[in-house]
Structures are given as C-alpha cells and as structure tokens.
C-alpha cells in the first residue's frame, strides 16, 4: 500500500512537470501548427541561467524569476527570428528548424557549461515527509512542484478565459484571418504565444532539474513524455495537456514501480498507442467542432 501511495505521489509530481511541457507544446501547436522540438532545449538553457545565478549565491527566488523571464524572452526571440520567416512555407520547414534549434541550443549549452551532470539546489527540502507514522517518498519540494504547475495552469486558464488578451490569442489561433479583419494584430500575439509556451517549459526545467541532474540534454526524455502527454490530451487543449500529463506521469510511475524501471519507456509507448487507437484525436480534442 505504501508503495502504491509513493508511486502515485511520484507519478503526480512528474506528471505535472510533463503537463507544463505539454502545455507549452499545445500553446504553440494550436497557434501555429508547429511542434516545437526545441521546447526542451530552451528550458535547459533557462535552467542553466538559474544554475549560474545560484552558483553566484543569489537568492533562489531571484534565480527562479530570472529563469522564467528568460523563458519569455527566448520564446519571443525564437518566434521572431526563426519562425516568422517560415509562415506560409511548406509545413516541414518549421519542423526542421525546431529540430536544428534543439541541437544548436544543446551544443551551445554544452560549450558554455560543460556536458557533465550537475545538481541544482532545490527551493525546499527533498527529504521525504512523514505523515503520522508513515514515511512517504514525497518531499516539500514535490509539493512545491505540484503547487507551481497548478498555479501556472490556473493563470493560463484565467488569461485565456477571462482577459481580452486571451480572447485575442484564441481568435488568432483558431481563425487568424478573421482575427486580422477585426483588427487583432495576429503576428504580435503569436510572439506572445511562443513566449508563454517557453515560459511554461522554463518552469518545467527548474522544477525537474533537482530531480534529474542538469546536463545539456536533461530535457530530452522530459520532452518525449511531455509530447506523449500533449498528444494524449489532444494537442489542442490546455486542459488536455494537464490531464494528459498526469496520466502519463502516473502510468510511467506505476509501470516503473511494478514492472521495473527498464519498462518505463516501452510502457509509455504502449500506453500512448492503446489510447490513440481508441481515441485517435486524443482525449480532449476539439477536432469535431473544428471541421465546419
């Protein structure tokens, strides 16, 4: 029973990290129909920024805030510099560019910070908590992970549902031409969308680094699972990203815990195949409403 509880809590923790990555992928996919393979690499970069600041013994929260702000800036720059010239070109072009960017960013990170693994100081203790007389494999830092991703999701929800900016962003994503005819500066909002997406990735990066170890390709497996989570959720829906992330996290955790950690990757792939053969459009896709 304790094992089950541990695996569940662990799965939730990782699941919410995957959800943050998935959210970033979804935001970009639904606005520009591009899968941003560089999402993970950019998050690694922002995490190195945080690590560098922490090495200079700056306050954790300063480093945290700077990493997230760097995410906003890197995302906006990526859209402006690399993606902007590709709109209206063959769909493969942005895919190739984001993969190229992934390789480039990881190499640059390796060149600057070296490719050996290093730790990242967490905000809170990573020692397991004891509830009553039971020791749980669940720490204060894990709670921080849960809370911060949920806060991120909540903020995004408020932004998209209840603000004019969010309404404009949704309109630009779903019907760019109509949006432009109504005076929405669609180009600018795409930049904002990429900035927010990379912001979500940057959060995932600083949260996951203390769990894994920080290295230039730290985010590669996280991106793969985040991508699985996004696809599971339907690629189009932020709520889908959250649910997909949690399901992926839990699934991998149970598979790893009960079948052995060597089964994790295979298990995740099987899970994805099974779900997608039952619901090819993902769990939360608006595909039906879209075809009019």
């Amino acid at each position, binding site marked *: 029973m304790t094992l089950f509880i541990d695996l569940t809590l662990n799965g939730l923790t990782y699941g919410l990290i995957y959800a943050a990555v998935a959210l970033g992928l979804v935001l970009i996919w639904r606005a520009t129909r591009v899968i941003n393979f560089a999402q993970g690499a950019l998050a690694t970069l922002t995490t190195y920024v945080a690590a560098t600041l922490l090495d200079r013994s700056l306050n954790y929260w300063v480093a945290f805030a700077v990493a997230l702000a760097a995410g906003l800036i890197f995302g906006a720059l990526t859209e402006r510099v690399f993606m902007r010239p590709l709109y209206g070109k063959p769909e493969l072009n942005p895919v190739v560019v984001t993969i190229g960017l992934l390789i480039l960013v990881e190499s640059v990170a390796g060149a600057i910070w070296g490719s050996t693994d290093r730790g990242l100081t967490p905000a809170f203790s990573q020692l397991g908590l004891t509830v009553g007389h039971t020791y749980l494999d669940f720490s204060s830092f894990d709670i921080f992970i849960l809370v911060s991703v949920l806060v991120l999701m909540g903020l995004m929800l408020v932004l998209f549902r209840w603000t*004019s900016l969010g309404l404009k962003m*949704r*309109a630009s994503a*779903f019907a760019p031409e*109509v949006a432009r005819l109504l005076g*929405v500066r669609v180009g600018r909002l795409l930049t904002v969308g990429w900035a927010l997406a990379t912001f979500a990735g940057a959060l995932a990066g600083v949260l996951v680094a203390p769990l894994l170890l920080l290295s230039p390709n730290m985010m590669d497996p996280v991106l793969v699972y985040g991508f699985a989570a996004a696809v599971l959720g339907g690629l189009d829906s932020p709520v889908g990203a959250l649910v997909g992330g949690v399901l992926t996290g839990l699934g991998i955790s149970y598979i790893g815990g009960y079948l052995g950690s060597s089964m994790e990757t295979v298990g995740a792939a099987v899970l994805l195949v099974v779900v997608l053969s039952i619901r090819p459009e993902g769990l939360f896709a608006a595909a039906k*409403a879209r075809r009019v």
Partner: protein
Amino acid sequence: MLEVSGLSVSYGPVAALSEVSFKAEEGSITAVLGANGAGKTTLLRALTGLAPVKSGSARWASNELIGRRTEELVRLGVAHVPEGRGVVTELTVEENLRLGALWRKRQPDFRQLIERTYDLFPPLAERRSRPAATLSGGERQMLVIARALVARPQLLLLDEPSLGLAPLVTLELMRTVKELSRRDGLTLLLVEQNATSALSIADAAVVLSIGRVVITGDPKTLAADDQLRHSYLGF
C-alpha cells in the same frame, strides 16, 4: 464615398481583377454581381489587404485602403465579413461579438452595444454563452454580421451573406441589411451570387465578368434587362 480606380490583382501569372473602377456613394448599398470566378470575392479581399494588388487604388473617405495591413482597416471604419467560415466556432457567441469590439482601446459603451446587437438579432441573445459551433447556418450569418457591426464600421463589405441559407432566411437577412444601412448610414458593398435578392435591396450595381467591370448602373434597369441578366447573371 468609396472610389475604386484601376484596381488589378493577380495570383502569379493569373489576373483575377483587371482595371476595376467604380464608385459607391456614402450610405448606399452597392451590389457586386457576377458569375462564379468573376472576381467578386477577390475585389473585397483586395480592399482589405488579403489579395495581392498589382496596381490601382481604393479611396475611402480621405484614406487610401490599398497597401495597408489588414488589421489596420477596422480602425479606418472598414469591416469585412468574409465568405463562409467567418464564425470562430471554438468561441462562444458572446466571445465572437466581443472580438468585434476589441480593437478599440477603451470601450465604455461595450455592454450597451452588445445588448443593442442582441435586440437586433434575438436568436443570438438566447445562445450567447453557447459555442458558436452549435449555431445553424442562418444564425452564423447573423453572428458574423452582428460582430462586424459591433466594430462600428462605416463601410461594410459583405461576401455572399446568403450562401447556403434557405430563401426565407435570405429574405429576412436582406431586410435586416437594408434596415441597417438606412439606420446607421452604413455604406455597403454586397457581393452576391444570388443576384435577385441583392438587386432587390441595392441602390447601385456593379457587374463583374472574368475580372472586369462590364456594367455599372441602376439595379432596376439591370433586373429588367433580359439580355444582361442572361449573359452575366444567369437567370
């Protein structure tokens, strides 16, 4: 007044509009007619920066429309209701309407404007918080026109509003359009395949054929001229 002169559009080597010129009086309804592929939709798209204009000009009030970015035009009082899929189906009815007002930085009378729109189109009021995807064809057409009105235009470009609508619904729609133009002094450019219904409410007509203006004139004379009707309008 809208004054279009010498407007040419081409998609690569294919000329879609050649030297199109006409005038539309302020507060009037001008029907733009012609067969499929005559360039009617291209004309509207050229006016709002969505089609590649090769040469020519289009002056509205004291502004040149050609060469501007699409998202600027609403700020000059021009609203364009594109053909067919103008409704953002993923948004609710009210969110669609809100989109129309977003371009203005401050909107003190926004609520009032929306309510007035609901008065004009009661079926929309009943469905305000539903996704626009659940609307019927006629309701969608109401919604896109209502949304354009929320933007408070002086020049309204309507592309095939009757497309896919039942005859009675079309009749109702045309009546509303006429009333709007009279009440708000809107200048309307009404592109229609359905020439009969468009001519019934228009003050002037422009007939296009393969990208050229072949007739401009009074809708009543046009409707009465059998030969013209047969050759260009197909009825």
